[in-house]
């Protein structure tokens, strides 16, 4: 059960108390300070839309997606741009960390005690010396309406 997914190089970032990572190949770029246009009636994790050099990209607040309390107003979030089905999506994180080479032997699946919501998005953890690095499932993070599309209340 401890077979690691094929993540070699990880892009790491901080989100409140969490130290998270996604495969570096998933990340297209990292951006600061973008004007976000809110979208009424969108999924609660959707922060809004941004102009990514002429393309309209959806911005997802990773805190809300993972159910972590809102960040302080004075913390300016950072956009991690990933691709989902060819569409750019940005994930809002608190701070961006280093790109790490991790040993897949240090990987382990999450314990059953982890909450249902988190288990869907967090694939497992790399046991680093200092702390646990949680591996996010990018495809699931950006898929806000898994399986069937929930009707949106207007």
């Amino acid at each position: 059960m401890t077979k690691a997914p094929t993540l070699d190089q990880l892009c790491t970032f901080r989100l409140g108390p969490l130290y998270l990572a996604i495969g570096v190949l998933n990340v297209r770029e990292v951006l600061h300070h973008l004007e976000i246009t809110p979208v009424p009636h969108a999924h609660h994790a959707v922060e809004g839309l941004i102009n990514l050099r002429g393309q309209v990209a959806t911005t997802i607040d990773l805190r809300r997606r993972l159910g972590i309390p809102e960040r302080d107003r004075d913390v300016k979030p950072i956009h991690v741009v990933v691709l989902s089905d060819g569409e750019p999506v940005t994930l809002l994180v608190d701070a961006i960390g280093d790109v790490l080479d991790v040993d897949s032997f240090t990987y382990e699946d999450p314990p059953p005690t982890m909450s249902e919501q988190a288990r869907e998005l967090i694939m497992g953890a790399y046991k680093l010396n200092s702390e646990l690095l949680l591996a996010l499932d990018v495809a699931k993070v950006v898929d806000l309406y898994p399986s069937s599309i929930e009707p949106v209340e207007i």
Partner: protein
Amino acid sequence: MDEIIGEFLVESYEGLDQMDESLVRLEETPDDIDILKEVFRTLHTIKGTCGFLGFGHLEKVAHAGENLLSLLRDGKRSMSPEITDALLATVDKLREILASVDETQGEGEPDIDQIVATLAVLTADDPAATTEPPAPPSADAVGTFAFDDGASDTTGSDRPDPVEPVAADAATSVDGEPGAEGDTLGYGIDPAPEGDGEGGAPKKPISLGRLGDMLVTAGAVNRTDVEIAAVEQQMGDLRPLGKILVESGLIEQGVIESVMAAQRSKSAGATIRVDVALLDRLMNLVGELVLSRNQIFQLAGERKDHEFVTPAQRLNLITSELQEGVMKTRMQPINNAWARLPRLVRDLSQQMDKRVRIEMVGKDTELDRTIIEAIKDPLTHIVRNTVDHGIELPEKRLAAGKDPEGLLRLRASHEGGQVNIEVSDDGKGIEAEPLRIKAVDSGFVTAENAAKMTDTEIVQLIFKSGLSTAKSVSNVSGRGVGMDVVKTNIERIGGSVDLKTEPGVGTTFKIKIPLTLAIIPALIITCAGNRYAIPQVNLLELVRLERDDPNNRIEDMHGAPVYRLRGRLLPIVDLREQLGAEPVVRATTNIVVLKADDQHFGLIVDAIEDTEEIVVKPMGHQVKDIKIFSGATIMGDGRIALILDLMGIAAGANLLEATVIGHNGNDVDTTPVDSSHALDDRTLLLLGIGPQQVAIPLATVERLEEFPQSAVERSEGRRVVQYRHQIMPLIDLGPMLAFTDSAFEQSDRVSVVVCSFNGRTVGLAVGAILDIVSHAEVLETITEDSQSVVIAERVTDVIDIPALVASVLPITTTPPAAEDQPSPVEAARPSSLSGV
């Protein structure tokens, strides 16, 4: 391999579409050998490729069709309805198998026996064959592909075939066959192993063939030499034309090769296939470039730095040109949407024993490809309906004194950033009365409303779902579903569809659609701190209400806010509420009057900004299912604005269900079924002249303008202004109507109503422009020579503008000083005036 199959599918579908069209044309002009050859080549190409790819069923069907076609082409058989039917059925069958290949990468187990048998019977049934000399199948059919061998003798009845008489034709045949170029060259030069021999006696005048023509055109050889060579061929020389020429020392082999190579690269290089996704990406990139250009241009303007301004201007020019170019790559002729209609019309009319001729004008009119796709179905539906209901049976047409053959005319043209498509017929038209009864019976309108509606309005009801004009339901149409879908689909792409009909004379559908969906005009508004775009097609008018005006406010009708717009109750929706934002108390209320699916409603917004051309951008899948937004756009400052989907908003506010109320007979005017908001004769523009008020029909009004007194000049003793590069005469309405107040004495600015009729434009100078009212709230007292109405408890004259203008500004002579010494009331036609 998949790529090859994909390409094969695209080419084959195109070819089959073309065949559909050609076969229908052939039926009219059965002797057109060029069309026949074209059809033959298409089928042959498909057959060849099928064999190569190992699609046995496809090959079998195509082969059977090809056999029949070769007889037709060689004049051994002439077109008949049965043959056309069989060939069209062949096309259908091929399409069916292709669809299966498309989906499953395999042919499946299609039932091809019947069609092959039908074709075989028609091929075998050979009345002319005995009298004609044994005719060759084509050189075309032979030898291009290895698997062609034996093709011609699969059907038992076929004779062993000698070959095409003029070998030069072999070169002709090849150009329809992609992938065969390699062989082409060999054809001209090497003795063809399949034997380009001489069959019967020479039938044709000396034809140089494609190769000969090419060589002559290229100046490589003179015409006489080629002619001689061609004659030699006809006399029995078995060598190909190129070989004869080379061997006679008239031309170098290398020259022939280079001429043919040039020709090949010409046809191969002229067009290429491009993935649509790539074009879409280019379009996006250009959109981005336009935005960057705008920013740079703005910077350049601020800096006033000449070294910077010049390149910025060049960038500007190039970007515009690039944008235009990329837009063009996405354009396709409308014929792509029309091509399948002749076939459809033929099949339908045959099925219903009708005779219909289809006429197409403006096939080359170009449209964005997404729009072409979007209008295909609505167009098909309209045409289907026209043939089914519109055009009568031949005997009925004869009885009505018409040509027994009905005419269906498609016409397309560009008009100011839009494309007009007309589908008209000379059929029986739509009678309003039965429809009126039916509309009342099925609860669409109350009997009372129905009685008030004009015939034109009644006829528009066919666009309502569930209402059919057909007396009986046929299997083609008449179930009452469809025309509403047509309308919805056309409106979804920002178009409109209109209907004109005259019983006994015919019906015309007028469709207006935008050239492109990528860029649309929109009104930008703000609400709850964000900007939103409203597509201009939905926009009717803007209304502004001041809080302190008790006569002009939003009223509450048991929880439903409404506003009285020209006497009708307009349901009101607050955008803040729709967006889930906090309500606010507003000093002035801005209402955007909108139309969504025939439902008119007012949308309260915080502020109205401007109209802009916006580039529509798709939204990510996380947000695109929100019904009140249809997309997003990037504004000049780089921020994003959401585009409102008015249908979604109307549905979200339960406005669309409101129509149901009407069904129960409780139509409380919240759901105007007719188009009473349209600017017809009953809508009046209310003008103030001093203390008096008069009204003119809004239909004659072109624009409302305001000029400073200094702009008013004199010409021939008359007041004029320069307006849109013309000299526009001004008529001082007050003195004209024997009121004392002149519009020119009131302030330093003059309000002018610009009227346009019969090709003339005049300005009416008035004291004030008050309001727009409709007849719904006026009480008419029309006597024989005057028309006055009561508006806002005041008697108001309705002025007959054309008569008035004709009296003041006769077209031939111009009485001087007409307005300074106002003519008495009689100057205008009496009917236009009456004392107040």
